[in-house]
């Protein structure tokens, strides 16, 4: 019998990486400088690649003819289990950078744990992805520092991005029901994560906000209004022309 928790957790990992990949992809052709246009597109390619691995694994668990694409293209907003953080708008370069940093710093720690998971497939995907995530973390950390400690304008934009995004960082550490027996210790991740983020923000002459209200819901399918628009665009062709090969 299918393990529902494992299945939902796999979808959560898949949805989170897909939605952030989709968001980052919108920069392709519109980046602030050609080299960074290429870099953010690379990150998008990595994330969507990771989502495919997770969706493919979910499909083998379900074993009812579901495919990576049926999961990505035919489920509704309420069925998506991504964290709220990754569906937040691209905003300006500061907001995109900070979103990436807040996520990559978490994903890096999560995948370090996950690579030793008792579930061999999840462990293998995490291990394979860690090299990519390490790069995403390095790249986004460098940009956080550069923008925080750059000009007054870039610093102000980073401050605004922190205000916008920080309330979406708490959710990552609160386990959904399906995460509880996955062999992941989110509390220990939280501690290390906060230290890493504090170090980088401090180097960027910025501060970690304190006593901020945290939004939750994404992991259980209660999203911000953003996700509906993302999925409308993402799923448009499959929903307009059902049942086709592409």
């Amino acid at each position, binding site marked *: 019998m299918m393990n529902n928790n494992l299945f939902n957790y796999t979808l959560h990992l898949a949805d989170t990486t*897909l939605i952030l990949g*989709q968001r980052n*992809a*919108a920069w*392709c*052709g*519109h*980046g*602030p*400088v*050609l*080299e*960074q*246009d*290429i870099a953010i*597109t*690379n990150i*998008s*390619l990595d994330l*969507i*690649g990771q*989502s*495919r691995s997770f*969706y493919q694994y979910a499909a083998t668990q379900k074993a009812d003819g579901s495919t*990576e*694409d049926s999961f*990505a*293209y035919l489920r509704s907003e309420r069925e998506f289990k991504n964290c709220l953080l990754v569906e937040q708008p691209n905003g*300006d*370069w500061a907001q995109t950078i900070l979103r990436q940093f807040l996520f990559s710093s978490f994903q890096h720690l999560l995948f370090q744990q996950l690579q030793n998971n008792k579930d061999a497939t999840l462990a293998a995907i995490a291990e394979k992805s860690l090299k990519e995530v390490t790069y995403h973390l390095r790249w986004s950390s460098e940009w956080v*520092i*550069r*923008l925080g*400690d*750059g*000009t007054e*304008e*870039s610093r102000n*934009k980073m401050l605004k991005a922190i205000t916008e995004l920080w309330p979406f960082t708490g959710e990552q550490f609160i386990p959904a029901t399906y995460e509880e027996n996955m062999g992941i210790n989110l509390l220990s991740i939280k501690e290390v994560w906060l230290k890493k983020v504090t170090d980088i923000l401090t180097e960027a002459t910025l501060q970690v906000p304190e006593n901020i209200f945290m939004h939750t819901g994404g992991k259980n399918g209660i999203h911000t209004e953003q996700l509906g628009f993302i999925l409308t*665009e*993402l799923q*448009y*062709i*499959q929903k307009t*022309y059902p049942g*086709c*090969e*592409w």
Partner: protein
Amino acid sequence: MTEQTSENVFLQKIEAEIKIEPKDWMPDAYRKTNIRQISQHAHSEIVGMLPEGNWISRAPSLKRKLILLAKVQDEAGHGLYLYSACETLGITREETINDLHSGKAKYASIFNYPTLSWADIGAIGWLVDGAAIMNQVMLTRTSYGPYARAMVKICKEESFHQRQGFESLLVLSKGTEAQKQMCQDAINRWWWPSLMMFGPKDSESTNSDQSMKWKIKRKSNDELRQSFVDMIAEQIKLLSMKLPDDKLKWNKEKNQYDWGEINWDEFWNVIKGNGPCNKERIAARSKAWEEGEWVRIAAKTYAEKKINKQVAV
């Protein structure tokens, strides 16, 4: 060395098929022609990201999304090599890009046409990249070294894109009625603009003669265009689709296809800025550049601060 001797050395190199390198003496007009052509080529890569980029968010499967994203990213990489090749001729990337935004520099007019359906992505890969390759294969032998070397790398990726485009249309051509229609419609809309990519007829081409003598160009617009028609007219048979040209017919004696006439009014109009998307394309590029200015300044300021700190230590 006198200018006369320098010019002789230059011409002897051209004659002997020795590449001209950045530090070599070259006639001003040779330098200018290369700057014009390479920067135009770089801009085409960058502006070309926009019509295809339109469909990244809407690609019909995750696999197609990754293929398209990687393809558009490749175009950015091509732009980067070409801007670098251009810099070897003494013009900065900023100057070159400003010329694009001000309208002084041109880019391939084909990108002023809209991408209206998913099939357009396949059609661009197959026809537009296909036409570009005809030109670029020739340019791997162009006389300016950095340009020729950039082209070798670019050609490899472009031929991969062309195969991917064709394969994506092949899937549509075997699909439902709606997919077949989408495929034919895209071919109808992209065919003539693709033929226009080779530029004006030889009899009307102002830059061609000197470029041929200097071996910047090695085949004429009409020669390249004909090879393209001959290639595509065969490939389309595998798609069971039609090219939108009643006059297209194999000519046994000439051993090539006869075909109809390009709408030259449309060609000149799009060049003059009256294509369906000329304004949007430049606006999108200018917006990205202007909105990225604070980022570039911040990066530069931070880098300077870091150097100063190191010096202080």
